[in-house]
């Protein structure tokens, strides 16, 4: 007897087999970040004075409300931990289920792989259900890991459990959102765009509601999860709208699946231009067009990040005055207000530069994707030389990284300027952010060299990104030896604005980057262009 769900079990096994690396990376990456934060935060706030200081600083910081909402029990260590991890945990779990669910529903359908499976004994809803169950399982595991980490950190049991449940339910809710998005849009990119927008809206509504302390928080799944008040009153009522919305979304997704054609959706792609612009017919034009979406996404995200960090600067002196440990964390040596702000800025410049290596490497690795898909072959069968083709992509990656640096610096200066009403430091902040660009370019250049010389190993380029992250986040805490720290190009750059600018490290790194790019170009010229 076959039901609309026949074959779900087989599909799930296929999904787990296909994602045997991807899923653990998500779980260990996200779960690990949550666990490390949960364990590292309590030792910093080891006295009632420090806890009170945190509570009063956060309780007066609109930026904290905007980013993390109003956490209950902020005057307890549990509340502090929850507040510290909430951004990573809440956004992380939503993004994770979004990527996983869309990957196994709409992406499969768009690429035509699902068609092959649909032709076997498979119920109409089997693919949707399998994608959902997979997302649910991943969300559950993150929820469990979070509760376990909190318990391991010695936090209150009921609070830890409530927090984990709230987080999991939030994940389930956005699994439903992603499932509906995957039914609406005919392309995986479109589905990710829809679901991502829904996440951003939910997050922002909660933030604005928390900032203004009004009922707007109740209009967002993020608000419901938070208003379960883990480490505070621990209320279960707000879980109801989360569950109800999830159920409604699942019914909607099922209805949409039943009422649309295979491969179809409700949102049709708009027709585009019948002719290409003159610029598009050049390697740089094509590379820019292919990376346009990537660049715009990163530009918006990083500008917003810069703005938020800029806006938080005015609250630094208060925050640090109440907790000297924070000064230690961000590496301030003097307690003068300006020195603290400079130390914070240095940390933010470095952090944002390291984040932007993610763009640079993604951008460079597009080269490999073009090659593997066979699209590079078609271009290289024209009069375009390999060096121009690779050079164009590298140029777009480099200029993109430069543009992102400028935007991050500008965002930071704007946020700071709006908060402080001072605009005289704008140039310094732009320059400060730019001073870290050579490190970004060097990481990207390593990716170019690997793609040119060892194409099969091009994913290794991500190890560079992972390492600079690791070094910046934990290098000081773990007291790594200099030679390990020194692998990161950022370690050699002067730490503006605390230190003064020196051209030598920057120039050395730029020369090194250029040499690596040349090496990659030579490799690409000499080797086979492998398709498929």
């Amino acid at each position, binding site marked *: 007897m076959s039901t609309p769900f026949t074959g779900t079990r087989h599909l799930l096994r296929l999904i787990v087999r296909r994602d045997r690396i991807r899923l653990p990376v998500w779980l260990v990456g996200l779960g690990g970040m949550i666990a490390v934060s949960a364990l590292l935060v309590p030792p910093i706030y080891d006295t009632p004075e420090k806890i009170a200081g945190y509570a009063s600083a956060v309780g007066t910081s609109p930026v904290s409300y905007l980013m993390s909402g109003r956490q209950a029990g902020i005057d307890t260590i549990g509340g502090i931990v929850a507040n510290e991890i909430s951004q990573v945990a809440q956004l992380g779990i939503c993004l994770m289920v979004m990527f996983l669910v869309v990957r196994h529903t709409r992406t499969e359908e*768009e690429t035509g792989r699902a068609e092959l499976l649909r032709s076997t004994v498979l119920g109409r809803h089997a693919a949707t259900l399998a994608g959902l169950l997979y997302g649910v399982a991943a969300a559950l595991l993150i929820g469990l890991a979070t509760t376990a980490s909190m318990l391991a950190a010695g936090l209150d049991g009921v609070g830890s459990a409530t927090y984990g449940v709230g987080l999991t339910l939030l994940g389930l809710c956005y699994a439903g959102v992603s499932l509906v998005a995957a039914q609406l849009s*005919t*392309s995986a*990119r479109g589905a990710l765009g829809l679901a991502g927008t829904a996440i951003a809206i939910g997050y922002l509504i909660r933030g604005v509601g928390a900032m203004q302390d009004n009922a707007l928080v109740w209009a967002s799944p993020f608000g419901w999860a938070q208003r379960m008040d883990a480490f505070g009153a621990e209320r279960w009522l707000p879980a109801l709208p989360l569950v109800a919305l999830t159920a409604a979304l699942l019914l909607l997704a099922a209805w949409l699946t039943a009422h649309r054609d295979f491969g179809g959706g409700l949102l049709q*792609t708009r*027709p*585009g*231009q*019948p*002719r*290409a612009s*003159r610029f*598009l*017919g*050049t*390697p740089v034009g*094509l590379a820019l*067009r*292919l990376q346009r*979406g990537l660049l715009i996404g990163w530009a918006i995200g990083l500008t917003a990040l810069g703005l938020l960090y800029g806006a938080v600067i005015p609250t630094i002196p208060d925050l640090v005055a109440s907790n000297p440990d924070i000064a230690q964390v961000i590496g301030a040596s003097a307690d003068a207000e300006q020195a603290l702000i400079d130390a914070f800025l240095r940390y933010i410049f470095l952090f944002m530069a390291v984040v932007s290596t993610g763009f640079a490497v993604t951008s460079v690795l597009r080269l490999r994707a073009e090659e593997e*898909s*066979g*699209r590079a*072959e*078609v*271009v*290289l*069968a*024209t*009069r*375009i*030389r*390999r060096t121009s083709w690779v050079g164009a992509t590298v140029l777009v990656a480099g200029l993109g990284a430069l543009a992102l640096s400028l935007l991050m610096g500008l965002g930071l200066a704007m946020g700071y300027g709006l908060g402080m009403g001072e605009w005289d430091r704008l140039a310094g902040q732009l320059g400060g952010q730019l001073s870290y660009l050579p490190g970004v370019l060097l990481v990207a250049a390593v990716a170019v060299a690997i793609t040119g010389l060892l194409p099969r190993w091009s994913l290794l380029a991500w190890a560079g990104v992972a390492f600079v992250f690791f070094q910046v986040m934990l290098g000081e805490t773990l007291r790594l030896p200099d030679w390990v720290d020194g692998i990161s190009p950022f370690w050699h750059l002067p730490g503006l604005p605390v230190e003064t600018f020196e051209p030598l490290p920057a120039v050395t790194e730029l020369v090194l980057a250029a040499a690596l790019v040349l090496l990659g170009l030579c490799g690409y010229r*000499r*080797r*086979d*262009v492998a*398709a*498929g």
Partner: protein
Amino acid sequence: MLCQDGVVTAIKLHDIVKTFGPVRALDGLHLTVEPGEVHGFLGPNGAGKSTTIRVLLGLLKADSGSTRLLGGDPWRQAADLHRRIAYVPGDVTLWPNLTGGEVIDVLGRMRGGLDEKRRAEMLERFELDPRKKARTYSKGNRQKVALVAALASRAELYLLDEPTSGLDPLMEAEFQRAVLELKHEGATVLLSSHILAEAEALSDRISIIRAGRVVQRGSLAELRHLTRTTVIAETAMPATAVAAVEGVHNPQFLDGRVIFDVDSDHLDAAVKALAALGVQSLTAHPPTLKELFLRQYGEEVTA
């Protein structure tokens, strides 16, 4: 490289070897294509057709052997030679966020310019909507985009790797017309295919490739000469004697009829033997390309 008569050979591959790890994709391949001919390049999947074309495009570097394309070395002079070439890949993938029209223009401009009139004409003939995003095209429509991009440019040499895969029969016929037009204009075409009827209809000469080697080459007539003719005859007297004639294969006797295959060089002897038995009806047909093809592949089974 000049031939004796002074015309540059379009393609001259000599003893090409290309290995991928332990796999010998091309194993001493010889291929010659003369200017102005449509050359059918036939073989089963995995025989090395696409690898050969990628070597010709300078995308892959042959381990050994010499490669000449329009008189040049495609590995060293790729970009210069590519101005004179149009290519349709076997497995067409397009940039999902570009429209079909944009892809055609991009490839055309990168190749060095499109013939606007031909572009419009080909879009019309292949019934392609250039405004649709590539991600929404079916396999057949993606194939049409690559075909229009190649056919709308004026090239000396067209390298077409299984160009009709995914096309419906009407579009296949349109494609055949377009190739014949190219031929009349004097262009050279290397047409890789496993669709026999297509190669039979279009090709002046044919090379059959199997396991990285060309195992048979020549014009269709020459190839047929090398192979067997099928004879069906009705004779007054039992035709058992025919079985004894040299070069006759698989004789079958059914209600006074005999059906057999005979090597083309022994056809004369076989017909004489039949004549002596009193021929009442006689049909003979030359081997189709399919039979040629199966015979070449058939050896794979026993090999």
